[in-house]
């Protein structure tokens, strides 16, 4: 046993070098894991401070804190880089020292070979070969076993066989849904499938005998100004913020939230959407339903079609939408068509268009460019003069298109200012509002430019600026945002009566049976008789704020407040359990 001083010294050197390497390596590994939380560019601490500063921009101590933290992170980052560099070289040196010392020590202890007699070399070699073969078989089985475990334990969601792939790549949804399945007109009329009802008139023919009371109310988890729509026993509403935009579905009888679905990952839609003014929000346009699907569009241009069970059928990105106050025109449906009035531009047209999509697939049927800047009125579809016409309002043109191919039927240059109130078809006329200026009635039977010839009558009294008018029979009713309700004759535009309701009004009025519903902004629900005599039929106060317009369906009145969705019905109905 050679334990010369040189050997001992070399061994000691080797141990020290080894320990040194372990130490340096350990420090570097520790630093690596610690640094993961102290990245200057991902630190949650810094982000939180920045958010605080955004809320309180002039806070000097906070600014100083951010600057110091940022400097600390950057210094640490530099130090860590330098440490890693030095550490690498130190490790290299240490390893070299270790290896040289240990190798030299081993060389000193090298023993000379002393082969022992091997009488059964032949037998041994045969046994060895046999053992080698069996262990090779073992290795082979182990490898095969591992491969099989990997192979059979795989969690692939993609198809396995060629046929399955074929099916995936040419899905049957490429076929179009036959038109025969489209709900008949009666179904549309029985429901409230879009803003202000199936024809956009804001009226429903059935009746409530008494002033309705609250049957249920449900919290709406996301903010928005869109009005509710109703089909069958479901109420749909959209809401959202720049982070997330969703569609909610409630049971119309009980108010239970059946499902909510986010419209997200829309192809082409940027993840970060621009801010929209709070007064408009992301979910101002009202949804639309065609009996098989519901459609929702948001201020950033995300459009989604969902089945009634909440599954997404298709999504489309129509943005970016350049609208100074935020896009708010609601969707319109007619049969299998979905219509979108996408007016953009602050003072001059910037890509405004009217789009018709096929509801089932989202395929664009036609698109018409419009010579107008942004507008916030929702189009209506009417059967007049023997044609199905789409009436659109913007500043300055009111334009009518055919539903089938979007060709212009007539247009008139009658509007000014920002057009918010939507048109209605009442008394045989198309009623349009030039906000704060004129209420006009137009004959829908013209062709070409009917600016000079189409106007039947116009009035400048009590012209509303936000709420759309509503008409029944030969009467037209309007409400200004100051709360002045006026009744005009539909044939001549003469004022019949007016009254001040003492409340600010954003929502458009609606007529249910013979009752005119006006929903004040601070929760006052006033019902007036929809007749030639001014007669208040009832007034109730709801504990919420309202911007959205009422929906009438299924014997109930649905109101979307800022916080809750309300269902009102006949007062003697039992109150449903709150969800």
């Amino acid at each position, binding site marked *: 046993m050679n334990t010369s001083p040189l050997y001992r010294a070399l061994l000691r050197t080797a141990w020290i070098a080894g320990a040194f390497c372990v130490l340096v390596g350990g420090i570097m590994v520790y630093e690596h894991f610690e640094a993961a939380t102290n990245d200057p560019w991902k630190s949650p601490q810094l982000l939180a401070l920045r958010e605080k500063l955004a809320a309180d921009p002039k806070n000097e101590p906070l600014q100083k804190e951010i600057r110091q933290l940022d400097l600390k992170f950057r210094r640490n980052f530099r130090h860590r880089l330098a440490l890693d560099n030095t550490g*690498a070289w130190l490790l290299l040196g240490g390893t070299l020292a270790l290896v040289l010392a240990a190798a030299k020590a081993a060389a000193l202890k090298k023993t000379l*070979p002393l082969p022992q007699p091997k009488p059964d070399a032949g037998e041994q070699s045969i046994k060895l070969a046999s053992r080698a073969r069996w262990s090779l078989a073992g290795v082979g089985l182990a490898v095969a076993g591992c491969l099989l475990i990997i192979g059979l334990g795989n969690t692939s969601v993609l198809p396995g066989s060629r046929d399955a*792939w074929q099916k995936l790549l040419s899905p049957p949804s490429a076929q179009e849904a036959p038109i025969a399945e489209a709900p008949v007109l009666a179904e549309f009329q029985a429901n409230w499938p879009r803003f202000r009802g199936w024809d956009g008139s804001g009226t429903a023919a059935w009746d409530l005998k008494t002033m309705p009371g609250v049957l249920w109310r449900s919290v709406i988890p996301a903010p928005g100004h869109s009005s509710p729509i109703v089909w069958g026993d479901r109420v749909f509403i959209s809401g959202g913020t720049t982070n997330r935009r969703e569609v909610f579905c409630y049971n119309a009888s009980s108010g239970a939230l059946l499902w909510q679905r986010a419209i997200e990952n829309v192809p082409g839609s940027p993840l970060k959407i621009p801010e929209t003014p709070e007064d408009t929000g992301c979910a101002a346009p009202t949804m639309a339903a065609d009996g098989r699907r519901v459609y929702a569009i948001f201020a950033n241009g995300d459009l989604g079609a969902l089945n009634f069970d909440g599954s997404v059928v298709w999504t489309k990105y129509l943005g970016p939408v350049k609208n100074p106050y935020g896009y708010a025109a609601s969707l319109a449906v007619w049969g299998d068509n979905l219509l979108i009035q996408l007016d953009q531009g602050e003072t001059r047209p910037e890509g405004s268009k009217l789009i018709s999509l096929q509801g089932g697939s989202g395929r664009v049927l036609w698109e018409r460019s419009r010579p107008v800047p942004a507008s916030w009125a929702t189009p209506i579809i009417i059967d007049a003069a023997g044609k199905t016409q789409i009436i659109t309002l913007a500043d300055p043109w009111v334009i009518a298109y055919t539903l089938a191919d979007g060709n212009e039927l007539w247009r008139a240059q009658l509007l000014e200012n920002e057009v918010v109130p939507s048109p209605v078809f009442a008394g045989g006329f198309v009623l349009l509002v030039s906000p704060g200026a004129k209420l006009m009635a137009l004959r829908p039977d013209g062709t070409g430019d009917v600016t000079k010839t189409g106007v039947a009558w116009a009035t400048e009294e009590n012209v509303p600026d936000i709420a759309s008018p509503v008409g029944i029979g030969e009467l037209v009713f309007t409400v200004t945002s100051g709360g002045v309700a006026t009744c005009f004759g539909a044939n001549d535009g003469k004022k019949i009566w007016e009254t001040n309701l003492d409340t600010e009004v954003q929502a458009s009025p609606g007529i249910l049976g013979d009752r005119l519903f006006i929903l004040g902004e601070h929760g006052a629900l006033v019902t007036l008789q929809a007749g030639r005599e001014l007669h208040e039929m009832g007034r109730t106060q709801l504990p919420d704020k309202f911007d959205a317009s009422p929906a009438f369906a299924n014997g109930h009145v649905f109101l979307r407040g800022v916080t809750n969705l309300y269902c009102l019905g006949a007062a003697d109905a039992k109150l449903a359990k709150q969800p």
Partner: protein
Amino acid sequence: MLRRLKFVGALGVMLLLALMVCAEQRFPPPDFENGYRLPSASTPAARQLWLQYADAGVLLAALGISVWLIYKKRSRRGLFWLSLFSLAYFGFYRKGCICPIGSPQNIVYGLFNPDYVVPATVLVFCFAPLVVALFAGRAFCAGVCPQGALQDLVLIKPVAVPLWLEQALSVIPYLFLGAGLIYAGTGTGFVICRYDPFVPFFRLSGGVFILTAGAAFLMAGMFVGRPYCRFLCPYGGLLRLASLVSKWRVRVTPDFCTQCRLCEQSCPFGAMREPAPSGTNPKWLWAERKRLGWLLALLPVLVAAGMWAGSKLSPAAAQLHPAVALAERYTRQQSHPVQYGLMTPESLSLQRAAEDPKAVLTAAADLRHRFDLACWLFGGWIGLVIGLKLVALSVRPGRTDFEPDRGACLACARCFAACPNERVRLGLMPAAGDPAPS
């Protein structure tokens, strides 16, 4: 419904934030009045092409010197210094890349992917050591491979691995080679490069996982000589095959073997073999012939079994390919949506997939079909390798001397010093029968 708004401030900020138009520049280039000149972006040049050719030249020169040192000079010291030079040049200077170990992947990648053309230098790096191995054995491993040189350097006290274990584990390099080639051929990536444990040391940086693995290999290499070379190196597998038919072979003795057995323990890499046992018992001979016959018959069965096992592997193996992984993630997202953070690689790739899902799925379909074939071949290859090795282990070697195994010998020249005839050649000992020096 809308309210009337306050215009100016909100509008200004909104317009700034809401402008997302494509096509022209949003902010037109300025007209500078004070004579300001636009700086230009610096474009530091990459390593020049002629230097790549110089690398190939150095490789060929090093191979030549290695062959000369092994067969002509028979010098361990010379090989040691050559391997140090290779470690410095190919290892620390060139950072271990491009290296022959990974080059078969480039070749296969070039064969099956028309958008990649193999550079000529890579061809040299791939074929030169193989051609040399056909003539002179694993001269590349001896003095030229930087990974080998590194492991060689840290070898302190070799521990003998039992021969049967060594032989059984010697099939693993072929499996690694097969896996590397199918991943290269399908365009997934270069897994041999990805999992090379020593290159991060040459780069002096790397991920924690691979650096730890490298450290583990080095620590193991202090006792088990050249673990990567013997049990993992895929190119080593190719060199082993080439060396089996090489023209010259490394012999311990410079002239003839005296059967003194002094070199038995001299190979730190388990390559030394003894002569075949003399005088075969007829009983054993018949058993051996029968066994050989069975194993030969078993060979196609193993290949078929391998092909079957390989075919099961395809969906899992394909997931390593980024395009297939994206299709999987996209499909999974449709049924079980996961909320990824904004602007993370996952959410961005999903966004891109959602723009044209058909293209993503079609690409994944095409890749899956390629993987079906590749994994089937891979399985068959595993079966073939194991079957052939079994056959090789049942054939009696016709060895008469103590000499290293052709395929396993790394030509490091360590065994020469143990041979008395070598000492005679070097003049360190008088020849048998010669008078001792006075």
